[in-house]
């Protein structure tokens, strides 16, 4: 993969600015000088002495953000590093990612965040780290949130595990609200989901695999919503997967509870039927649910109950996944297929307009995290994704940029090519 270059004087020619509120596309050339947008509109190239990038056919949007990824560094650099994760993110069209803190050691202390920042320095992709809710991710005592916010944490989560102790969750919501940061919960009532490897339903019954019932998620979502209402804290529900959870969140939002949530591309596209045949690349947590759940998740996105699409990129080494189902770890990679799945399933499938879909990957995550929105205006720092939403490509797991290959989407024909990215004074072109 070619490296990003300094955006000293670059002209992106032939793209159209996509207004994410109205869906209106306006043809504009974009001139970047020293990382800032110097000109928007028709720029003549006759007398231009910088680099010209042809982005004909592309829509130009604020840089895409994936607010839920696992980069495995520190601890499992054999599976992913900040560097390879950033490469996968670029290939997927993202200029920002939020790594989850379930590393080894976990990101529950300033040193780990400092280390991550150091690793990400010089990358085009920006890291907005999420710190652990509890010390050691043990779920017993809340971490030093104030210091972690100072060190750059944008949110708190013990993802990989739920915050199972209700009192700890209550304190976390209360304490994090002093800094205006959300607590992100992986919602699962563990006594109900224990031992499960897939959704509990007719498919698990048929395969003889232990199931995780939808109510294990819904009970925890309900608990968290009660706590968010009681404390006034900011709650973000990670990877919502059931129709019941969507409905609970919809009602809580209507009541004014401060809650946002995200959904993954795989929960929007696959059902538990994909587990038939026992492919370990269909083992994820939360598990793939039923067609009715997929429908409800899509409806939740459409009506704004769900604001964010995030991949839950979870790289696992081949030897860890090449085992029987029961022994395999949960999770799949997602950074490089996220946009393509969304465009194929949701935009082609007429669930969302292109602008709505891209909002859930740009505006949505920044709003959920309380971050400043990216502006595309003269004088602003350029943070842009150039995407050809019509082009088609086929997923080939041997050609992905993540260190891992655990995807169930190998061979799928997806839509949307990333042509170029610009961020942090750097630009990158997919073509060369």
């Amino acid at each position, binding site marked *: 993969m070619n490296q990003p270059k300094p955006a000293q004087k670059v002209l992106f020619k032939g793209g159209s600015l996509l207004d994410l509120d109205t869906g209106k596309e306006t043809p504009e050339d974009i001139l970047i000088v020293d990382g800032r947008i110097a000109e928007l509109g028709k720029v003549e190239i006759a007398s231009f002495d910088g680099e010209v990038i042809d982005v004909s056919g592309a829509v130009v949007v604020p840089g895409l953000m994936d607010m839920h990824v696992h980069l495995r560094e520190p601890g499992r650099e054999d599976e992913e590093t900040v560097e390879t994760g950033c490469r996968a993110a670029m290939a997927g069209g993202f200029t920002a990612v939020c790594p989850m803190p379930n590393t080894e050691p976990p990101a529950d202390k300033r040193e780990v965040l400092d280390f991550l920042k150091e690793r990400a320095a010089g990358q085009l992709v920006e890291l907005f780290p999420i710190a652990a809710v509890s010390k050691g991710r043990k779920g017993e005592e809340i971490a030093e949130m104030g210091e972690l916010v100072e060190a750059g944490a944008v949110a708190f989560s013990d993802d990989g595990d739920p915050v199972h102790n209700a009192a700890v969750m209550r304190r976390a919501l209360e304490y994090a609200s002093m800094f205006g940061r959300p607590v992100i919960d992986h919602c699962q009532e563990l006594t109900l989901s224990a031992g499960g490897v897939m959704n509990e*339903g007719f498919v698990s019954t048929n395969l003889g*695999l232990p199931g995780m019932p939808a109510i294990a998620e819904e009970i925890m979502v309900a608990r968290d919503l009660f706590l968010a209402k009681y404390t006034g804290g900011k709650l973000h529900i990670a990877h919502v997967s059931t129709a019941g959870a969507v409905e609970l969140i919809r009602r809580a939002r209507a009541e004014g509870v401060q809650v946002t949530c995200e959904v993954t591309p795989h929960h929007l596209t696959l059902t538990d039927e994909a587990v038939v045949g026992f492919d370990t690349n269909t083992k994820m947590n939360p598990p793939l649910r039923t067609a009715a759940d997929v429908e409800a998740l899509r409806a939740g996105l459409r009506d704004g109950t769900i604001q964010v699409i995030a991949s839950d990129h979870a790289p696992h080494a081949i030897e860890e996944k090449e*085992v029987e189902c029961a022994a395999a770890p949960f999770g799949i990679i997602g950074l490089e297929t996220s946009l393509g799945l969304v465009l194929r399933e949701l935009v082609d499938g007429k669930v969302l307009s292109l602008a709505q879909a891209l909002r859930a990957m740009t505006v949505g995550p920044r709003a959920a995290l309380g971050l400043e929105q990216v502006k595309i205006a003269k004088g602003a720092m350029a943070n842009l994704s150039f995407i050809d939403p019509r082009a088609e490509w086929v997923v080939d797991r041997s050609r992905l940029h993540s260190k891992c290959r655990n995807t169930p989407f190998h061979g799928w024909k997806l839509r949307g090519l990333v042509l170029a990215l610009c961020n942090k004074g750097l630009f990158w072109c997919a073509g060369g």
Partner: protein
Amino acid sequence: MEFRRKHLLELQGMSREELTLILDTAETFREVLERPIPKVPTLRAVTVANVFFEPSTRTRLSFELAEKRLSADLVSFSAATSSVLKGETLKDTARNIEAMKVDMVVIRHSAAGAPHFLSRCLAASVINAGDGCHEHPTQGLLDMMTLRHKFGRLEGLKVAIVGDIEHSRVARSNLHGLRTMGAEVLLCGPSTLMPVEAERWGVAVTHDLDEAIAWADALNVLRIQRERQAAGLFPSLREYHARFGVTRRRLERAGKEVTILHPGPINRGVEIESDLADSEFSVILDQVTNGVAVRMAVLYLLAGAQGALQGS
């Protein structure tokens, strides 16, 4: 018809013709077993590996006997004596088996889908000898063979499967095979051991054993595992026996003859009354004999489908 499958992984999805062919073939092998020298040279030069990751004396002996009766070469290993305990993965084990140039692998594993996984990484034919709570196809076949012997038909037969349905691979193979052959299936057991949405299999479900007995021509009584009580799935063995134990009194109350099957080994006095297991109603020993015949049939048909029989 010709048998075309390379593996026997599950009965779900097999056609009535395929199942009939296996059962008919098993009948001819049952005759072989009754001869003074119960051995045929059919699988000479075919090597079978019996790989048991989970203890099962009965199934392993039955397969080994079937292989010997067909004159196959066999290697057997079980988890206790294998490198599995040293943390070797299923895939590495498979590669080693492959390197030994075996033609068929019989696998028993505690994880559902392990035989499917193996079938994807081996050139050999894979026979599922029980995978977790998924299927136990040769057990399903031998149960069907036993019923067909007893009743002369499977079409229209009423079979109640009694006990821990949720964790039973025997139940799954039975219900798929029986339903494909035109039998009716009723599942009976405590609600905590009944898998969710079981009715979607096209079977009836009851929690009343007397109702099951009144309805059934045959009861397939499953072994109840004591660790399910530890997991809180039923209150005690005593309570289980009182509600779901098959007893002579219950049969007498129903006032009818019911054939009783059990995959063994039996917990006498728990899922079934001890003397009833040895009674005139029981076909349990018949099941054991048919087990060898069915496994011979499966090995023979898969070897033929793989071309391993040519020139022998």
